C-alpha cells in the first residue's frame, strides 16, 4: 500500500470501529432492569427463601436498589450478581423470612404476581414477576427421602420410601398449564398421566420419581424460572389423607447468545 493511503485508511478503520461498536453497544442495552417470569411454588413451612432473577445493564443505566412484595412486606431482599455477560449482569434477589415471621404470617395461600421495584433513577414501579404461589402445607410423614439428584441437562430423580401402607389417590403438578409442554414426570418408571389410580403401596415399598425438563433454547420458557411441586395425595389404611410434595426445579441457564437475542427483541418473549 502506498504510504499516502496509510493514515487515511487507518483513520477510516478506527472511525468505523468506533461507530460500529457504539451502535452495537447501544443495541444491546436494556432500557431498564428486566425481571424474568417466575413460576414458583413455595411452602411457607418448609422454605424460608424466595429468589427472584433479573437482568440489568453492567454500566450506565438505572439499577435496582431494592425490592418489596406487598403481600410479604417483612421480606427483605438481598441483591447480588449471579452471572456476568458482555453487557448485562444476571442478578438474584433473595428474600428470606425467619421463624418469627412464620408465626405471625397469615397462613392463607397467596399468589404473588407483581413486585414493587425501586431504582437508582426514577420512581419505584410495579413489575410483573410471573406467579409465585405461597402455600402452607404441613409436611406429611408418609415418605422418607432416600436420595435425590439433578443434572444440568434438565433431568433429576428422587427415591422415596413409604413409611406406612397407603394408596396414591391423585397426582398434581403446580403451575401445570405453564410447564406441561416442557416437563415429563415418571413415577416408578411410568408417566404420571398413565398411572391407574389409586396405586397401592405397602409399608417399606419404594417409589421413584424421575423428571426431565426439555425447554428449547429459543422458546420463551427458556427465560422463565420454574420451581414447581409434584403433589402426591395419599390415603392411609385408617382413612387419613396425607399430602406429600416433591420439589421439581429447573436449572435455568441462559447463554450469552440467548441473552443477546432476548435483549435485542426488547426483552419481549421471542
Amino acid at each position, binding site marked *: 500500500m502506498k504510504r499516502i493511503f*496509510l*493514515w487515511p485508511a*487507518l483513520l477510516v*478503520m*478506527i472511525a468505523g*470501529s*468506533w461507530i*460500529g*461498536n*457504539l451502535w*452495537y*453497544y447501544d443495541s*444491546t442495552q436494556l432500557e431498564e432492569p428486566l425481571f424474568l417470569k417466575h413460576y414458583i411454588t413455595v411452602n411457607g413451612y418448609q422454605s424460608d427463601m424466595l429468589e427472584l432473577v433479573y437482568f440489568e445493564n*453492567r*454500566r*450506565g443505566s438505572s439499577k435496582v436498589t431494592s425490592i418489596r412484595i406487598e403481600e410479604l412486606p417483612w421480606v427483605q431482599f438481598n441483591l447480588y450478581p449471579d452471572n*456476568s*455477560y*458482555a*453487557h448485562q449482569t444476571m442478578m438474584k434477589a433473595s428474600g428470606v423470612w425467619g421463624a418469627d415471621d412464620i408465626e405471625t404470617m397469615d397462613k392463607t395461600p397467596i399468589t404473588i404476581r407483581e413486585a414493587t421495584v425501586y431504582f437508582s433513577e426514577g420512581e419505584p414501579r410495579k413489575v410483573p414477576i410471573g406467579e409465585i404461589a405461597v402455600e402452607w402445607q404441613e409436611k406429611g410423614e408418609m415418605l422418607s427421602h432416600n436420595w435425590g439428584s439433578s443434572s444440568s441437562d434438565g433431568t433429576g430423580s428422587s427415591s422415596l420410601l413409604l413409611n406406612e401402607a397407603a394408596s396414591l389417590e391423585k397426582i398434581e403438578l403446580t403451575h401445570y398449564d405453564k410447564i406441561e409442554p416442557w416437563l415429563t414426570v415418571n413415577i416408578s418408571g411410568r408417566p404420571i398421566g398413565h398411572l391407574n389410580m389409586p396405586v397401592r403401596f405397602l409399608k417399606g415399598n419404594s417409589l421413584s420419581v424421575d423428571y426431565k425438563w426439555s425447554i428449547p433454547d429459543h422458546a420463551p420458557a427458556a427465560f422463565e424460572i420454574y420451581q414447581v411441586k409434584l403433589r402426591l395425595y395419599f390415603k392411609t389404611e385408617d382413612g387419613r389423607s396425607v399430602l406429600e410434595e416433591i420439589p421439581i426445579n429447573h436449572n435455568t441457564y441462559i447463554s*450469552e447468545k440467548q441473552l443477546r437475542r432476548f435483549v435485542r427483541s426488547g426483552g419481549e418473549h421471542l
Partner: protein
Amino acid sequence: MMMSREGAFRRLGWGIVIVLFDIRMVIDVLPDFIGYILIASALHRLNEKQPVFGKAKWAAFLMIFLTMPDMVINTNIPLNDFMSVSLVTHIYAQSILLIHLVLAFWIFNGLAEIAQLAGQDPLRELVIFRRDFYMIVYGAVLVFYPFLMNINDGWISVLILTSIISLLAGLLFLRLPFRFAKASDEL
C-alpha cells in the same frame, strides 16, 4: 555546551522509556510530557545536522502539551470494565495514542534515513522491520480498541496477550536510539 549526537540519541531513548512506562502513585510520577520534552529536544539536536526529524520534532512538541492532563487523568482503562471510563477519556487516550503513533512513524523514518545516508543497509532494514511491526501492532490496537465495550470477560487472555505484544513492539522501538547512540561515530 552543545549536546553530542550520541547524547541526543540517548536522550531520545530515555524519552521513549518514560512514555512507554507509567508509574502511577495517585499521579503519574514519570509523566509522559517529560518524556516528550526529552524526545523533542533530542530530535531538535539531531535535526540540526541531518534534517530528517522535522515533522517528528513538531509532533513531539505538540505531544508535550497534549499529554500534560495525562498526569492527573488516569487513561489506563481497566480491561474488564471498559465502560467504567467516560467516552471523553477514551477518545482523549486514543487520540494521544494515534498522534504518538504518527510521531513514532516519523522517528522510525528519520532513523532509517540516517542509516541509509551512512550506508548502513542492515541497520536501515532493521529499523524498517521494527517500524512495520510497531505500526501493525499499534494500528491494530487502535482499530480493535472499541471492541472492548462489546466483549465479555472470556476475552481477557487475548487482551493480556495483546498487551504483551504491544510492550514487545515498544521495547524494540526504544532499543533503536540506544543502538544508534552506540554507533553514532559511524552514522
